[in-house]
């Protein structure tokens, strides 16, 4: 059975696209058949995160408008053959994204893939609601910061009302992914802690991705962080999150909690 995931947040810049690429690659690395879809029409970036920007010929809007067939728009990753990208259009108007068109594309993808990961645009407008429309489960990407937490709360409300599952009276499974977490600052009381965010949003935790220079390095070279440096702290956190998505029981490590006294005293170096 295919699982449709939406990676969403409300707020921009919190790490939706980075997380879509990293989780998609991690699941594919584990042998799953994965397609990642960019829903950010006009501002596509998932192609860049995957290093596939020069291979885009057709896109989601072309498929919806019947200009191209779905297989023509799918771009296979060069590193992982079971990871596929469906890019967004960079030039078209976002109104070209229609409810019927998206439904057709998702239905067709459900037959071919284990995981369909929809990278939502920021905001709560059409693009974001269409990205979540068909979701079986949602990954809410949140930074431990007031505006991000507030917007996540708003998005959780939309997931409970605007999705097909919600309209049928079913529940969309919701998973919280906390990104850009800085354990040292949280310990000093300068940043909301994991417990603070979980208590405020009361949503189950999928993973904690520590702030790391590896994430920027990965985007610089066009590779998901889970492939560019699989041993780095953020990559390991994404791999753990991917295994939890598959239903595996992986212990949750809160970054910084196993840290020794010396590290506590002399501060932290990003991984």
């Amino acid at each position, binding site marked *: 059975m295919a699982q449709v995931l939406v990676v969403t947040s409300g707020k921009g810049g919190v790490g939706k696209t980075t997380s879509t690429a990293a989780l998609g690659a991690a699941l594919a690395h584990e042998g799953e058949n994965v397609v990642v879809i960019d829903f950010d029409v006009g501002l596509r970036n998932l192609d860049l995160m995957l290093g596939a920007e020069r291979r885009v010929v057709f896109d989601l809007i072309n498929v919806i408008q019947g200009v191209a067939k779905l297989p023509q728009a799918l771009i296979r990753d060069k590193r992982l053959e079971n990871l596929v990208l469906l890019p967004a259009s960079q030039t078209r108007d976002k109104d070209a994204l229609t409810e019927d068109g998206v439904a057709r594309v998702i239905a067709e993808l459900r037959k071919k893939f284990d995981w369909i990961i929809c990278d939502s645009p920021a905001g709560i407008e059409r693009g974001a609601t269409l990205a979540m429309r068909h979701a079986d489960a949602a990954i809410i990407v949140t930074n431990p*910061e*007031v505006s991000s*937490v*507030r917007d996540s*709360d*708003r998005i959780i*409300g939309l997931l409970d009302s605007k999705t097909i599952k919600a309209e049928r009276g079913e529940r969309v499974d919701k998973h919280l992914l906390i990104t850009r977490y800085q354990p040292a600052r*949280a310990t*000093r*009381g*300068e*940043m*909301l*802690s994991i417990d*603070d965010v979980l208590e*405020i949003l009361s949503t189950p935790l999928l993973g904690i991705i520590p702030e790391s220079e590896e994430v920027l390095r990965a985007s610089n070279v066009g590779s998901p962080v889970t492939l560019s440096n699989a041993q780095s702290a953020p990559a390991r956190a994404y791999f753990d999150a991917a295994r939890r998505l598959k239903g595996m029981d992986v212990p949750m490590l809160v970054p910084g909690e196993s840290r020794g006294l010396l590290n506590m005293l002399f501060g932290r170096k990003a991984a």
Partner: protein
Amino acid sequence: MNLFNLIRRGSAPVARERLQILLAHERIARSQPDLLGVLREEILAVISRHVAFEPDKVQIKMDRGKSVSTLEVDIEIPNGFGAALPRAS
């Protein structure tokens, strides 16, 4: 919270408290997206069964207080309306 506390404890507790208060309000507002609209329609429906009035001459206001909220309904009714209606027995 004073400055001394802020320096000693960091600003995260302030963030947490602000979010908790804000989200409590926003969740209520979300769960009753158009309470006033619904009230207005139903109140008008009941009154219009007994009295003729101009729908434009109706004002419904809600004030949310800390412990008590008030609902204010102001309906302008033309004079002599009683004669047109049968007396309740």
